[in-house]
């Protein structure tokens, strides 16, 4: 049960909105954080919390791509395939991952570590090609970078190649200024 484990956090979320239903997406995120995807039990529990019917929760979940209704791999690799990234070679990036992991978009590795998805624009067109893995962005991908990211994730569960606060081009010191 979510309420047992996250009671305080749920109360805080509910306090932000004058109308309970607004807390629906934040609570679904909580459920997804817990299980990796949104389970039927979680949907029912959230429905009860917000005084909604389970179908009202379900119809909302199915509208949004970030919410998963099925289990995904431990690392969900989402490669942007929209035009701006495609101009910079995103199809090639998908090809590299296909070769290295033996999975096509929509598939997961048998060990349950990686799921590959081709997704639409993630607002990183200036640093294309790019992908999102779980919460993190990885930009200006090259074959070496993809290799290192996959290796890092396998061994340590994270990679220092992930992006920090976005800015491109990077600031440069101007002559004469400090």
């Amino acid at each position, binding site marked *: 049960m979510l309420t047992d484990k996250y009671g305080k956090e749920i109360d805080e979320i509910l306090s932000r909105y004058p109308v309970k*239903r607004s807390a629906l997406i934040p609570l679904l995120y909580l459920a997804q954080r817990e299980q990796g995807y949104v389970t039927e039990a979680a949907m029912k529990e959230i429905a009860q919390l917000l005084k909604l019917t389970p179908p009202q929760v379900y119809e909302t979940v199915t509208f949004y791509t970030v919410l998963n209704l099925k289990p995904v791999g431990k690392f969900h690799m989402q490669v942007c395939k929209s035009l701006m990234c495609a*101009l910079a070679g995103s199809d090639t990036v998908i090809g590299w991952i296909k070769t290295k992991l033996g999975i096509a978009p929509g598939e997961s590795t048998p060990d349950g570590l990686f799921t590959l998805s081709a997704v639409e624009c993630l*607002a990183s*067109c200036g640093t294309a090609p790019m992908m999102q893995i779980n919460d993190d962005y990885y930009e200006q991908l090259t074959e070496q970078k993809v290799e290192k990211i996959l290796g890092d994730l396998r061994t340590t569960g994270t990679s220092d190649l992930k992006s920090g*606060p976005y800015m491109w081009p990077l600031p440069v010191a101007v002559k004469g200024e400090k």
Partner: protein
Amino acid sequence: MPKHELLLLKNMSQPGYTGSLAEYEATGGYQALRATLGKTAPADVTAAVRKSGLRGRGGAGFPTGVKWGFLPKDYQGPRYLCCNADESEPGTFKDRQLMERDPHQVLEGILLACYAIGAESAYIYIRGEMVLGSKILERAIGEARAAGYIGKSILGTGTNVDVWVHRGAGAYICGEETALLESLEGKRGLPRIKPPFPATHGLYNKPTVVNNVETLANLPHILTRGAEWFAAIGSPPKSTGTRVFCVSGHVQRPGNYEVPMGVTFRELVYEHAGGMRSDKPIKAFIPGGASAPFLTPSHLDVKLDFESVAAAGSMLGSGGVTVMEEGTSMVWAALRLMEFFYHESCGKCSPCREGSSWLVQTMRRIMAKRGRMQDLETLSDLCKNIAGRTVCAFGDAEVAPIQSTLKYWREEYVSLIREAEAADLIMPETVGARRES
């Protein structure tokens, strides 16, 4: 180096600037809020913003002060401000930078807007994928609350404003303001029929203003340095101020460049973004995000302001400029964007829901060299029957790539179809008849 004065990107362009409250204050941050709250009447703030000529930076370009003016004056109940941080337009990545690198600039803008419209609650609707951005904003809100800029009786003036971050969950349509409100209410993000407009019936049916991140980030500058000063920047009288243009595609230095409105595409692409990435010349560019019709190299001297781009047959939109080099297939490019729109159509209106799927299938067939000449007519017909026939502007947006590429590069469609016909080894007239049976 920028030869224009930077406003929005000024702080973050200093190497080492991290966007903390202390750093923001050290550069004059929150001075506009201190000078305005309790000292200038809210109506005068709205008047100043109207006078500055500031127009929405999200895509539609509606005058911000005018939008605020639509709120009912005598309404006593709650009002809301929603900061539209759903940045999902392909080709656009400026709001992400503004939020992640200088979050307090955005927050100060939100607080000023709340004061002007009398809102005590503001929600920042940030797209679900931007986890880092939402964390940075939440941290900044915490800092601002501790410093007395957010919460009850801000700076002792009796003005109350609370700000929350609300993460979306990956739907392009939620950048449309009424879809954003639906989503914020915990529903599917389906745009509402307008009127009534959010100004009278917005979030929870209460008077609401929805403003883009970049729009709000301009407010501290306008209120510090004056409406006249702002109105003189750029391309007055209708396109004032600077814009952060996002350059992507086949250029040397893609990225965000802040320039006054009214510079030409040529200057943006060749001076700021360093020109083309190889010796291949420019073939096409999209001037304002995926929803804007494609333009050709003959439009490079068009000025980057709302009117000039509209006169050239496209739109300035969200400021996402995507450049394509010679050798790029325009049919392929239009198909890529069409696939995006097909994926993101919310499904509310039949012309858009059914039409986008039909357009994608027809385009895929042409691209796979299995098209026929009649397909070109089908494409034009479909486009005409989608644009203007939907609840929101998505319908107009989704036909832009196909209509504009058909207009300027029709021969590329024709040659793909000719190849199909040649490979089929049958008379062109019979191709359609056979396939339809």
